[in-house]
């Protein structure tokens, strides 16, 4: 029946579509469930036949119908168990398929998109949203089959037994159906509002817990933290309203779609028929046995709708990730290889949204092999964006980026990555040994090479001091490493990769003085002999750069060497002046520093 639904709603994608990869097995499970339902009804009919035989021929064993009851009961039961097994295995398979597809898709999506959605959110989709489908796929599909097949088969059987009683049973069912529809009225809208209110509560809860250190410092103890309470109150208000609104019809639905009213109607009506005209007791009994469950079979539909609604939210999020565009790849025959270690931006423009403002506008520069180019500018000037256009986090919207004389879009991803290495601000270590982390991307590097890289990155000494040296596990589940140590491991990684072009997004925060010194030393080792693009957040490191690009709101404001730019007296000179002041900032409680502290000018003259 899910195919019907799909056809009837071509625009609004049906949640059933998510089962496409395991559709065959799900259909099989539903068929088994339907058949099982049929057989259990047959078993009930056979019971009436047993009684019939006992009345007709008292004292004779009703072997045939009794055997029938036994066979049908056992078969129905086996079918039901099997149906659930099949749907569960299908659901597990579907989880695996969806997760595999998602992870493969992410490997081809632009990194900019991944960053936009966020690593945590993506992980949540792959793990939790896929898991959320379980109840829908595994548990509800056999129930669905039963909820539809049960009443249909029952009705046919009843019509065959006694059409008058059949109509009575249908009347009860119809009444229940009406009540249920009433309860479901405006449901889509209410469910939407319900989820909206719930999401606000979740957000408030997360905020409340995460911000607790801050909340506490402003906690006067008099009233509950207002924002949290507001969200809770709004949710309560909505929930109470919904319950009251749906209360009458929902309760009516539950009262009617219970076996008891059907049983009562069938009893009264049957007895009346027997009194007025004639009704064979066995037929009446068969109707009672089969027909009473008819309304009951509809009951699960109510909770099933709820489950599907929940699954829908997860399906939407999964689809959203699957629909993110993949980075266009050049055809293998058209691919070109980089010729040298140069980097050129030619009239590059870039905007994050088609109708947004330009994050980078008309930027042209050339970085000759072996030279150092520094990108500086106020925050939001587009420094990091420019750096990320090189590894194709995004593709430019105007102009082109040439690595080794070749447009990055005309290169195979492997060739581009083989030419350029990146050291990002956020240091990322994988679960695995430190050696494996350094060796990333160069799996056949010898232990000596790894250690040499670590030594150059000023990391060898502290790695040796760890409990298991290079075999110590790092990453999420490994030992604690300070930020500076982690940075040096990632620098060792880049040194080992040894690619001609280096894109370096300088860290904004340094851990502690000794780490800072080691880090600077490690970076200068890494940069030796490379074409370097350095995103500088602190200016101390760039005075000797071959060229400094000063960006302002995505445009190239100034270009030159340090001394020239200072002499020019423009934006760079202003930034430099501010930097010097920030460096010299000294906190002092209330007395002027000269009173008891040495002035920074004097500090500099201290022996070291």
């Amino acid at each position: 029946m899910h195919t019907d639904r799909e056809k009837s709603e071509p625009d609004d994608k049906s949640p059933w579509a998510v089962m496409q990869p395991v559709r065959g097995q799900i259909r099989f499970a539903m068929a088994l469930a339907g058949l099982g339902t049929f057989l259990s009804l047959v078993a009930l009919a056979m019971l009436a036949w047993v009684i019939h035989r006992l009345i007709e021929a008292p004292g004779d064993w009703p072997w045939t119908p009794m055997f029938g009851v036994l066979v049908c009961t056992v078969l129905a039961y086996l079918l039901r168990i099997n149906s659930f097994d099949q749907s569960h295995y299908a659901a597990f398979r579907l989880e695996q398929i969806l997760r595999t597809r998602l992870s493969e898709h992410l490997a081809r999506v632009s990194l900019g998109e991944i960053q936009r959605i966020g690593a945590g959110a993506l992980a949540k989709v792959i793990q939790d949203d896929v898991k959320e489908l379980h109840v829908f796929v595994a548990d509800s599909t056999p129930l669905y089959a039963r909820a539809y097949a049960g009443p249909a088969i029952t009705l046919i059987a009843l019509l065959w037994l006694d059409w008058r009683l059949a109509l009575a049973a249908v009347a009860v069912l119809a009444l229940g159906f009406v009540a249920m529809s009433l309860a479901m009225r405006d449901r889509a809208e209410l469910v939407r509002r319900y989820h909206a209110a719930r999401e606000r509560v979740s957000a408030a809860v997360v905020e409340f817990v995460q911000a607790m250190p801050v909340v506490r410092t402003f906690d006067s103890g008099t009233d509950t933290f207002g924002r949290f309470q507001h969200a809770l109150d709004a949710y309560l208000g909505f929930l109470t309203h919904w319950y009251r609104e749906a209360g009458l019809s929902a309760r009516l639905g539950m009262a009617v779609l219970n076996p008891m009213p059907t049983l009562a109607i069938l009893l009264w009506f049957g007895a009346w028929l027997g009194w007025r005209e004639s009704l064979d007791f066995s037929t009446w009994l068969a109707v009672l046995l089969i027909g009473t469950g008819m309304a009951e079979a509809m009951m699960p539909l109510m909770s099933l709708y709820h489950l599907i609604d929940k699954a829908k939210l997860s399906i939407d999020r999964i689809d959203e990730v699957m629909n993110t565009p993949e980075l266009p790849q050049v055809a293998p025959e058209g691919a070109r290889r980089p010729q040298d270690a140069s980097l050129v931006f030619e009239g590059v423009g870039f905007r994050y949204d088609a109708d947004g403002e330009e994050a980078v506008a008309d930027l042209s520069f050339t970085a000759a092999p072996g030279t150092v180019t520094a990108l500086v500018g106020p925050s939001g000037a587009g420094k990091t964006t420019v750096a990320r256009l090189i590894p194709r986090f995004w593709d430019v919207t105007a102009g082109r980026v040439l690595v080794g004389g070749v447009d990055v879009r005309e290169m195979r991803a492997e060739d581009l990555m083989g030419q350029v290495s990146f050291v990002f601000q956020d240091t990322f270590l994988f679960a695995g040994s430190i050696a494996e982390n350094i060796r990333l991307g160069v799996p056949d590097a010898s232990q000596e090479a790894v250690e040499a890289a670590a030594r150059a990155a000023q990391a060898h000494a502290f790695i040796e001091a760890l409990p298991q040296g290079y075999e110590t596990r790092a990453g999420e589940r490994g030992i604690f490493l300070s930020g500076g140590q982690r940075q040096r491991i990632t620098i060792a990684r880049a040194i080992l990769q040894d690619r001609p072009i280096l894109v370096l997004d300088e860290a904004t925060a340094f851990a502690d003085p000794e780490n800072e010194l080691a880090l600077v030393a490690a970076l200068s080792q890494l940069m030796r002999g490379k074409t370097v693009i350095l995103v500088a957040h602190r200016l101390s490191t760039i005075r000797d750069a071959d060229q400094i690009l000063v960006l302002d709101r995505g445009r190239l404001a100034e270009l030159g060497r340090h001394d020239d730019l200072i002499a020019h007296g423009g934006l760079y000179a202003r930034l430099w002046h501010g930097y010097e002041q920030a460096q010299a900032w000294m906190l002092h409680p209330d007395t002027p520093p000269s009173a008891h502290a040495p002035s920074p000018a004097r500090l500099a003259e201290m022996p070291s």
Partner: protein
Amino acid sequence: MTTDSSPTMPASSSGPRPITPWLKTYRQLLRSSGTRAAELRAALLGLTIAAALQGLALACLLPLFSSVLPDPDWPAVWTWLAVMTALMGLATVARWRAQGFDFDGHMAAATHELRTRLGEQLRRMPLERLQDKRTGEVSSTLLGNVDENLNYLLTVVNLILGAIVTPLVAALATLFVDWRMGLILLLIFPTILPLYRWRRPIFARNMRRLAETHQRINGDILEYTQGLPVLRAARCAGERAASLQEGFEELRLVQSRAQRAGNRPKVLIASLVELGLLLVVAVGVTWAIAGTLDVAVLAALLVMVSRFAEPLANFVNYTAILELIETALERIEALLAIEPLPQRTPTAVPTEFDIAFSGVTFGYAQGDRPVIRDLDAELPARRMTALVGPSGSGKSTLTRLLMRHADPQRGTVAIGGVDVRAIPPETLNGLISVVFQDVYLFDDTVLANIRMARPDASDAEVEAAARAARCLDFIERLPQGWDTPLGDIGGRLSGGERQRISIARALLKQAPIVVLDEPTAALDTESERSVQEAIDALVRDKTVIVIAHRLSTIAGADAILVLEDGRLVEQGRHADLLAAGRRYRAMWNAQQRAKAWHLIETEPDRDTLPPTDSQTIPNSAASEPR
């Protein structure tokens, strides 16, 4: 009353083992429903009565059929039909009323109350416990999903009662008509119940194994999504994806195994129900043929029993939901049981604001060794004290002890001579302003974010704080000025702007003690400058504790405490510490050398030059707030 209305069976039939936990759950349930406990008890009682009445109604089939067969006794038929209908009607009324717990909003109100109570508890419990990752996660999930767990309570209880109480009452009533059949019914159906407990350990074991696998996969997935930029750059995204997919395959195998193992008890219980049904048929037919059982009675029994089969077979599924509820209740109780840090009496409020740590030793609950060891330090009032030392040396922990995120295992922390444990928590909160490296802004307007520091502050006061914190220029440039919701423009504020808002907040609070924990570490140069100006305004005339990575920033401090591995290794003023030539001097030298290091080596011996570049350290006048 308590036992009568409990959603369990009388002890005689199902044995004491399943009863005890259910009784415990029932008590926890009443406790968790707070002021709505009476309504809940009434609702559960109502459902039990409804289920019992339904059992009686079904039992009416016995006399009813007996009056139809072999020859109809119509008056008796009408009478029994009327009795049966009346019982059904009463059952419906009882259930209708009981469902009022849901539909009249009592359930929503009870979960709302519970959530509020849990929220209160989070505010009271030691912050250290909450910041422990595991507890933090559990708490937020609990707080977020408390109603998800409890909303289905009535529905589930109703279904379970339908599976237990209804058959039981019907079976008891059958005893009066035919004691043998009654006995068989009693033996078959209620004996199935304890079996569900047998399923539990298997269920729990599989759940645990599944949870472990999920957790591992979860870590792998997160690592993959976080590491994608690095993986792609290293050209091994495909390889990692492959190992991730092996994990997915393994998960499927574990799931399938759990499904098979979990199925066994389920299959067995369901089989017993089906077999019981067949047994009733077989025995009934035997006795009917022997002439000791009326065919009418047998027919009635078949109709009754066919009604039991479905709910009983589903019983096991319902108990799974009940287990979820039980787990949630246990967690709620555990969370509520966490004691807040003890309040010393008599309480006292400090009038001076010097800070003293004496003999303080502290280790985090989840850590194996102390992070602060036997530390003594005095921080004078209205003076600035700097904490320096390598990462992990205990600097931040010391400030957390002052704010009482946790209490030290030994020693005392005192403000103005008063032990912080004797200061009422609200008072203590009011004494200290903190500026962290990471700024937390709330999803609210700029104005509300600043004003939360002192809700009764006038607009002029808020504005003055914002001006002093150098916020005015950028606030006025925001699309809706002061009323701009920060959630909408979160990304558009720079780190420095966010930090300045948090400083305005701290300024407005006017606390006598200010803690600065690396407030400018994560900022770029340009933002740093304006944040520094804002901080200069904040620290005026306060007792200040500052943690800063750049030592020149704190060179003017009245006292510098050098920490290493949780111990105080050196203290004094900058000049004295430099002269002493020990730990501080080494750090200072390292930093000076880093500053002068030339990243780009134009001359081979550049890096050995002494750090005498006076341009990087201009005269002090430039750093004075103007």
